[in-house]
């Protein structure tokens, strides 16, 4: 069986020193992993590579056996669409649509059918059921983040990626978010990759990969 995520000897740079040199990692189906490293160490860049938004200088990335590090953009888009959903730190919801509207659009764009009931159930599961018709700007930070996670999960990805989900939270809330992500990922049978500079999250994960970054 294919690994969920297979990164083989990937190197990348932005014209300066290499951010990664021959970086490799694997994540089995349903696996959970923390990607930890200081700011600027290349975590977000790695996520862009995994999502196929960037092409690495060399090496190969496969998701569920499908290469996303090569080929035309449309092909990389298709692989991402089939397998990956991402929650960004501040880029969470389409501002013009309600929470439910965001979920509906996400499901449709991912080519998945999602009924009103599916959406209501998922929002309930995340404790924001009463916010279905609210607009993004009417939500608190925590609610918006949950809505973004719901938006990602409605697409039924095999890999859920979260970039800095806890950066602005106090200890208790950071712990709550980490718990939520881990629980949801295993409940939905989704692999989980969390990128953070927040070392408080380390104890929640069995597996962690550290990025050193470029020495200044």
């Amino acid at each position, binding site marked *: 069986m294919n690994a969920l995520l297979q990164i083989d000897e990937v190197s990348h740079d932005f014209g300066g020193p290499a951010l990664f040199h021959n970086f490799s990692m694997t994540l089995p189906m349903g696996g959970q992993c923390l990607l930890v490293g200081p700011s600027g160490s290349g975590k*977000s*860049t790695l*996520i*862009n590579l995994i*999502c196929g*938004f*960037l092409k690495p200088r060399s090496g190969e990335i496969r998701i569920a056996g499908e290469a996303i590090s090569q080929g035309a*953009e*449309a092909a990389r*888009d298709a692989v*991402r*669409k089939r397998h990956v959903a*991402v929650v*960004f*730190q*501040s*880029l*969470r*919801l*389409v*501002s*013009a*649509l309600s929470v439910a*509207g965001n979920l509906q*659009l*996400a499901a449709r*764009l*991912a*080519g998945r059918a999602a009924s009103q009931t599916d959406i209501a159930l998922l929002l309930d599961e995340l404790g924001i059921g009463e916010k279905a018709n609210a607009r993004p700007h009417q939500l608190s930070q925590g609610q918006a983040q949950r809505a973004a996670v719901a*938006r990602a999960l409605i*697409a039924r990805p095999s890999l859920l990626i979260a970039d800095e989900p806890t950066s602005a939270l106090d200890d208790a809330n950071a712990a709550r978010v980490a718990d939520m992500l881990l629980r949801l990922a295993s409940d939905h049978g989704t692999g989980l990759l969390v990128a953070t500079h927040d070392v408080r999250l380390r104890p929640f994960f069995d597996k962690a990969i550290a990025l050193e970054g470029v020495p200044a």
Partner: protein
Amino acid sequence: MIRLVLAYLGENRLTSALNVILLAIPVAMLVLLLQFARQSEERFLAGAEGIDLVVGAKGSPLQLVLSSVYHLDRPTGNIPLAELERLRSNPLVASAIPLALGDQFDGFRIVGTEAALLELYDAHLARGRPYARPFEAVIGAEVARTTGARIGQRFVGSHGLAAGDEGEGHEATPFEVVGILAPTGKPVDRLILTSVESVWDVHGIEHHDEEAGEGGHEDEHAHDEAKEGLHEGEAEITAILLSYRNPSAAVRLPSYINRGTNLQAASPARESTRLILLFEPAIRAVGAFALLLAIAGALAIFISLWSTMRSRQPDLALLRVMGASRGAIFRTVLLEGVMTAGLAALAGIALAHAMLWAASRAWQGVSDAGIVAGRIGAGEGVLFLATLAVGTLAALLPAWGVTRSHLAPILQRN
């Protein structure tokens, strides 16, 4: 995707509405122009149908046509009644209908004529009967509607041809309405028809006619010697409407009349074409102005889309993350421009017709000219499509710009 575009339009309600208005105004102008040009042309052509030639006193041919076909201008003068018989005996003439003008009631012209005029305009009585005796009159639909005159009603004509003319009343010789015509959309709607003899009688003109029961009636009013219309003296009429017996008449009759007699012959077709040509530069100028406004509207759409796209970049990046292709993003932006333009086109067309409707209520002149609202034709269709094209064009560059932008840096920043 359409719902997303609608949501975006709704999110920037004010800007969207402003853009719609900016583009709707020139659309409305163009529709108005289109309607005026088409409807007045149609009206003109319908009014002159069946009239090959107008014969009257020497003067401006356009004035002769306007006064005796469309009943808009003042007549060029009078001609002797004898000319009618002479023309009737001409083998080139199929029919000749006399017109005797001079008086009006409430701004509507009293026309002394023959029953053939009704046939010419294909006018039928809605109520009542044709005029038979002196001082009986049949009124056009517009006259009946405006004055509220009914069968049996008596009215007094006054000298002059327009409502503003301060003529004296012919109190001694009131007319009686005996018939009301159904609407025709032609000039006859605004006329009060009676016999030529009645018009003479009002003005105390001696004529030898067996039907004239009240013949020899004395007119105690001294009319000022206005050039227009009839006044005391020998039996005269104002103009004659002719139709040709054969095509060769079109070549020979006008030149014969214009050169060989003291009369003037004018062709309604030629004069109305000249009139329309007269309006063409004005129509062109207004059209060019409207196009300029349309360009301004398109520019407004372009600028607002361009600036919205900058602020919406993270949103659109998120859409890409959610699985929307570049093509889909391109289409959303394009659709936003197209929908703005489509709304503007619909609003503009509706606005123009609302204005036409309001104008035809508020100003008699507009409905007199035969301009009515709600007649949406192919012109509007073309204009609608053209407006959509303008919207597409305005959205093209912003859409392309958004589609070209690289995702990774946007995502990195967030």
